[in-house]
Each structure stands twice: as C-alpha cells, then as structure tokens.
C-alpha cells in the first residue's frame, strides 16, 4: 500500500492526556516488616527482609519455589508457630504498629484480624452455612439473627451468595472446587478481618473459577489488605497493586505492580518475570 502524504498539517488542539491512577502507598503501612530473619531450626530461610504492606491494596509475593515467600506470609498471622523450631530469629513484624510477636499478643485475636486462605480449599465437613458461621461461633456469637446477617454478608462479599442461597444447609463438599475456595474466602471474611493472606488461592482451580476468585480479590481490596502468594505471574500482574519479588530468602524488589512488570529495577527481577530462571 502506498500512501501519499498530506501536504499540509494542522496543529493538534491542546489536550490533557489521561493518566491511569497508580496507587501510592501514602497511608501508614498495615504490616511493617523490619530486618526480619527467619529460621526453621538451624536452617535460615529469610534474610534481613524489610517491607511495608500498604493498606486496602493487593500485594503479591512472587519468586521461585523455596524463596521464602510463603514463610513470610505465614509469619503475618503466626501460622509458623505450629511448626517446631520455626521462629523469627531477628527483626520485627508489626500490624498497625504493634509487634505481633510480643508476649502479650493474643494469637487467636491476631488470626481473626489476619485471616488466611490456603492453596487447596479446605471447607469443614459441615453445611455451607455452618462453614461460614464457624468462626463467629468460635468467637462467641450466639444470636441467630446476627449470624444469619454475617453469613449472608460474607457470602455476598465472596461473590457466592447467588449460587448457594437456596442450599445453605447442603454440605460444603457438594460445591465445585472454585465455589469451595470462595466459601473459604467467605469463611475468612465472616470474622471481619483487616488482612487476608492467600497462599496460591487459585492453583487448584480451572480458568473460569480462577477468574472469579481473581475478580473477587480485586473487589475485596477496597475494604481489606490482601497479601497473595502466587506462582502465576500473569495473575500477579492482573490482580495486585504491588508486587514483591523474593529470591533465595531475600526481598529483591518491591514496588507498584505496573512498574515491576514493565520496567523492574533489578536484573534478577527482570530475569525471573521474563522466564529466564526460576
């Protein structure tokens, strides 16, 4: 095709280019990690990690297997306490300015504030309703109307209400894998946490179920602080605001997801996200 050029050119009218808003971590961090080392017995797996998790945003942890991302995630609600010999050997982790490893911390209350969703959905062998109500009952809620309200609210927030509202008394095991994972998210939401930790929440789901959970994660960020560990780079790109890249137990780079996936500052990050190692 040959195009004859126009002989005259008109100056373009002045305009304001539209800029895509990029969230800036201006608010005080929800979780602050300072100089943290972590060991399983004598084996150190995290080295001098410093990180501030912004509130009401999705932060993705990425990195090759064994880089320490899940270990750090599990530090945030002290899930590692359940493993013999596992301990934060140096540094400090704060939730809204309070040391979560301080002796006077109520771990049950910490885990209410910092909920968790696991890689494989793990509903209890109970009804859909009882699964969501479980945490509330553990916390002492007895009033039926309050529990009903919380169950509906949580299931709606987890984008599951429409699919299960007519069978709340059915076993949770009758749900599909994707529905079970959203049920687990609803269960986590029911106790009104401030932070939700997700450890590869879509790794066992099909693409449609994955899309639903990702959409949910994106919506939940308006009200919750979400930290997600994922091996799926596209998923981190799609649903997170910030990304932290870990390698061999060290935090290599942390920043806005758009920056990490378009022009990372560190060579190791670039090589990992472009599939050159890992």
């Amino acid at each position, binding site marked *: 095709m040959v195009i*004859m*050029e126009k002989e005259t050119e008109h100056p373009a009218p002045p305009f304001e280019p539209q800029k895509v808003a990029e969230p800036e971590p201006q608010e005080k961090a929800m979780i602050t990690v300072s100089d943290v080392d972590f060991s399983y017995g004598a084996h150190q797996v995290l080295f001098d990690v410093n990180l501030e998790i912004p509130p009401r945003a999705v932060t993705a942890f990425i990195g090759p297997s064994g880089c320490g991302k899940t270990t750090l995630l599990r530090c945030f609600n002290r899930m590692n306490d359940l493993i013999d010999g596992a301990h934060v050997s140096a540094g400090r982790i704060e939730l809204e300015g309070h040391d979560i490893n301080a002796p006077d911390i109520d771990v049950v209350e910490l885990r209410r504030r910092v909920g968790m969703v696991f890689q494989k959905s793990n509903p209890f062998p109970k009804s859909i309703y009882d699964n969501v109500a479980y945490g509330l009952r553990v916390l002492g809620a007895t009033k039926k109307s309050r529990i009903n309200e919380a169950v509906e609210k949580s299931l709606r927030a987890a984008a599951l209400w429409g699919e299960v509202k007519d069978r709340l008394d059915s076993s949770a095991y009758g749900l599909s894998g994707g529905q079970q994972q959203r049920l687990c998210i609803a269960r986590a939401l029911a106790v009104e946490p401030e932070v939700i930790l997700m450890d590869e929440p879509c790794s066992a789901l099909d693409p449609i179920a994955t899309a639903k959970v990702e959409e949910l994660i994106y919506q939940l960020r308006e009200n919750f602080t979400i930290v997600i560990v994922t091996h799926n780079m596209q998923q981190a790109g799609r649903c997170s605001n910030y990304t932290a890249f870990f390698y061999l137990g060290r935090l290599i780079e942390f920043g806005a997801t758009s920056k990490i996936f378009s022009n990372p500052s560190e060579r190791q990050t670039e*090589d990992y996200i472009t*599939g*050159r190692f890992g």
Partner: protein
Amino acid sequence: MLSEQKHTLGTFEHALENLRNNVMMMASQTERSLNRALKGLMDRDDKLAALAIADDEEIDQLEKQIDKDGIDLLLRFQPVASDLRRVVSAMKLSSNLERMADQATNIARKARKLNKHPALPEILLLNPMIDHAMAMFRDSVDAYIREDAQAARAIIPQDDALDKMNAQVSRQLIDRMARDPEQLRGYINLMFVARHLERVGDHATNIAEDAVYAAAAEDIRHQQVAATA
C-alpha cells in the same frame, strides 16, 4: 533494563528471535528500496525506479507477517518487561519501515516522471538531504538492533536539520520556478522528492523513539508538546 540471558522456554526464545530477524530483513529491504529509488532518480535509471516500486509489495507482506508474529507472541507467551517492549516496538518499527518504503515508491514515481524530460541541474540540491535522511535511517535502525538508547536519543535532534534543509530546498526551487516557469512541473516534482525525504527523517525519528522505549522503557515522544502544555 535488558537481559542477555536466554529464556527457559526455548519456543519463546525462538519466537522472539524470529520476530527480530524479520524486522532486520524488513529494514534491509526498505534500505535497498530507498537506495534504488534515489539512484534511479539521480542516475535517471527507470529500471531501478521500477525495482523500487516492485519492492513495496514484498515489504508490505513483511509488515503483515511481523504484526501476525507479534500478536501470536503476545497471545501465546504473554511477555512482560523488556520482552513486551521488544514485541511492541518490533510491531511499531515495521509500521514505520512500511511507510518509509512507501516514500521510496513515491520517490521512484517522481523519478520516472522527471526522467521523461531533460535533466534538471537543480536535482543536485537534493544531495545533502539524501545523505542526511539515509544516515538517519541507518542510524535509527542500527540503534534499535543494538538496543542502544543513547545512540537512538542522538538521532532525534537531527530531524530538525532535515526539516531546515527541506525548507531551504523548497525556497530555492520556488525561486527557480519564478525565473524559469517552463520547468515548473520538474521543479514541483523535485519539491515532492524533498518532502518525501523529509518524511523518511520523520519515520527514522519514530524508530529512534521506539528504540529508546525498547531499550530503556522510556517514552520520549511528543516531549515538546508536553513541555508547552
């Protein structure tokens, strides 16, 4: 930041390499087409001009192939960071090369028109523009291939010089028209050739901007507009 290391996924590496080779091939064919058109003009060689016009079809097909390969690569591998910039810039580069090849065709057509009449000595006024535009073309493609952002940046200001040359040649030819209206048609065709060369410089500038984006992740387009807005 650009990585030298190879991808774990060999098919991805191969697809990127293939895209890059096609861009290099398209650049080399575009350069050949421009050289043929300009030599056809200066040496009054209709055969070369015809070859330049014939080159266009092949270059158009390469543009389509690069777009197809680029889209296929985006679809299959969802590249990020420098890989994404490489794919996007390759697709933009092919569009600029295709339009440069159009300029070669335009020049070749003007050459055939001019060759039907006695030679005009004023054709020599175009020589500095030809040298400048072709140097811009070669340097911009070279900067892109070598992923050299610094060399690419150095090309941008050269476009102003080419614009000034074009304005000067136009003034000189308008002056000749007034003095020798008999040669009006020939002078107008020479003015068109100058204009086509000026457009080659514009496309070389675009390529240099894309080279900076690919190598340094920086968008340096329209900076004057942004600064005055």
